[in-house]
């Protein structure tokens, strides 16, 4: 199976996760780990950069649903940015844009936090 990779960067008071490859039921735990670690260290403002993500399955989408709620309960959020059209259409189809903030660029996502 294709690989997946999640790396956390710190930008000011935000944490940016770069996701790469294929996010599905098998690779989702890796992303869940990163998000759990952030919550453990009380970091609730997160931007996920999808620039290098090739594919996301329903199990991958589920990760965001679970963690966005946790972040929001603590006055934070997960904002999603820089999705490829194919990836975006999956989010779009399920109605994610109606519930969560999705931005074309990382910058816009960061700015949204600053507002």
């Amino acid at each position: 199976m294709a690989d997946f990779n999640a790396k956390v960067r710190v930008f000011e008071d935000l944490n940016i996760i770069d996701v790469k490859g294929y996010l599905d039921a098998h690779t989702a735990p890796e992303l869940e780990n990163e998000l759990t670690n952030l919550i453990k260290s009380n970091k609730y403002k997160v931007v996920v950069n999808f620039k290098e993500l090739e594919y996301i399955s329903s199990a991958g989408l589920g990760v965001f649903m679970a963690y966005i709620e946790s972040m929001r309960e603590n006055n934070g959020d997960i904002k999603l940015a820089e999705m490829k059209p194919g990836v975006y259409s999956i989010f779009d189809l399920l109605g994610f844009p109606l519930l969560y903030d999705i931005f074309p660029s990382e910058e816009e996502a960061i700015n949204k936090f600053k507002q």
Partner: protein
Amino acid sequence: MQNSINTITENKRFQFLLFFFAVIAIFQIFIPYKGIVFLEIINEVLILSFTALFVLNLILIEFKKKYHPLKITSSFLAAFGLLLMSIIVLNITMNVFGISHSDFSPSPGLFEKIIILLFNSVIFVVSVYVLVSLRELFYLRTVKNINTYYNAMIVFIVLASVTSVFNEEAYKEYNFIYLAFTVNAIILIFLNSLRISWIAFLRVKQKRQLLLVSVILVVLSIIILIQTTDENFQSASKSFSYFLHNFNNLIIINVMIYSFVIFFTTLFHLPTAEVFDKKSREVSSMQYFSKLINQALDSKELIHTISDLGIEIGGSDAIFLNLDLDGDSKVIGVKNLSDSDANKIAAYTNSLTPGFGVNYVVLKEFNNKQHPENRFASVYIAALKSYAKLHGHLYFLKYSEISLDEEDKKMLETFADYSAIALENSYLLRESIEKERLEKELDVARKMQMSIVPAEAPKLRNAEISCSFIPAFEVGGDYYDFFTLSENKLGIIIADVSGKGISAAFIMAELRGIFESLTKLKQEPKDILIFVNQILNRILDRKSFISAVFAVLDLETGELVLSRAGHCPPVLLSNGVINLIRPEGIALGMNYQGKFDGFLEEVKFTLKDDDLLFLYTDGVTESKNSTLEDFGENRLYEIIKNYGDCSPDEITNKLIKEITIFSENNSQHDDISFIILKWNKNKTGEING
């Protein structure tokens, strides 16, 4: 029962022997038999048969059977010590009470008789004990049947003992009989004493001990033999029984010869003992290794075995394993030391030898500075490596700083290698069991799914429906169904539960129950989906959601009402044109705070003749080819457009064929399901009418 019978007879035998002894004691003390040949013979016969019975009894209860030969040999020291003591006590008593040896014979007083009885009892016990123990040693590790030699020896010892009376002055002319028997007995004793193969199987340490024991035994035997020629001993012993006197002498000679042979054999064995020791350990370790390999089933037990065998094979004083488990190292299988000590030693050696370049570490510095209570002086660390994969390390601890030679190291390394393979096997086995379990689980899920999804499309007036469901190996959680809402209304649901496997299949099953009951109460797609969402709040976890389309078709008018909860938009082919029906709506289970209800829309339109409605899950468009390219919407729309004139069943076949060809070199990741509905009111009307 068997056991109790045995103990009863054992008891009876013991009682009988006791009774026998009492008879002899009474005979000795109260019957003045001296000088009366007939009575003297009776006395000898009594003692001979008592000895025989006693020996047979001891053999029968498997006396000393399980003892180590070294222990048996050492016990002779105690027996001979006792004999020597009793000789000394006899001499002291005779001195103190002024008894001369001539008082013992021919007519001793009562006091003398008691002394004689007690003294000879000791001789008797020692002789019998040594005889039976020697028999154990003779029969130890013997391959060939040596019964004949042994029995001949016993016969000659008894004959020599019985005829020892001819050695006396009175029967001097028959002396040759006694001598012949004695010589034969001694020759046979010597021959039997060569059966000492058990010495070879002793450890070096034990051989050294045996050497010492045999020297002392030889010396003790000689001292006692000299003592037996003393007049005090002779008269005290002979006045009791000539038989016992000589019997005892021969037994002592036996021990002396045997010890002598043991001494020289052990002496010659000693230089090669260490090598022999190692070789024999190597041989037995081969058995251990096969034991290891066979223990893959239970990894806990396996680690226990590795520790046990490691101590034995390595000759270590303590042992532990430091395993790499999912990136963390963990100390387990700790034997003969505490877990915390093992952890400290592991941390220390690790700090010394990053990457374990060094295998042998002297713990002197560690003990001095960090851990003064540590008892171990050195540790040998062997890597647990199999198929180039490192599982961890084995730590062999020793009290001493004995350096290991190349063969020792090779031995430990080989043991570690075998252990690593056994560990690897146990991991693999666990994995494959887990995999099998998962596969069985998936099997159940697939069967469940197949039983939930209707096998056939309903037969309708005015419309033709075809549907297809191809489950993925991992079970995708696709679901579709048809419900009769009222006489004219057909409800169609197509849904995709997020996630895979048994959990998705369970949610599917629940979903079916929910729709089954809700469609009896409600007729509007939007109402139904909103209700479903509310119910799902109690069922779904936060990570799960369900995309769905619910459509209601009026079978008379062709009016279609449809709501979409985050699902792939249904495709409507009308007049050769593809239309996507995409009312707003988020997936079920994504929001329970009213947002779902708020966003959900409902569309309504009327189907015309030959209109084709295509409902599907993303398994269709996400089918992948060998380069991981999606089948995609465009290919789908193209096929629907091209085969729009065909019947739904024909289109189904074409589509499945196209998808199969497209994804030929790639496995199916998700369930593929779709429903094709064609409205043909007037056509069927024509046929029917």
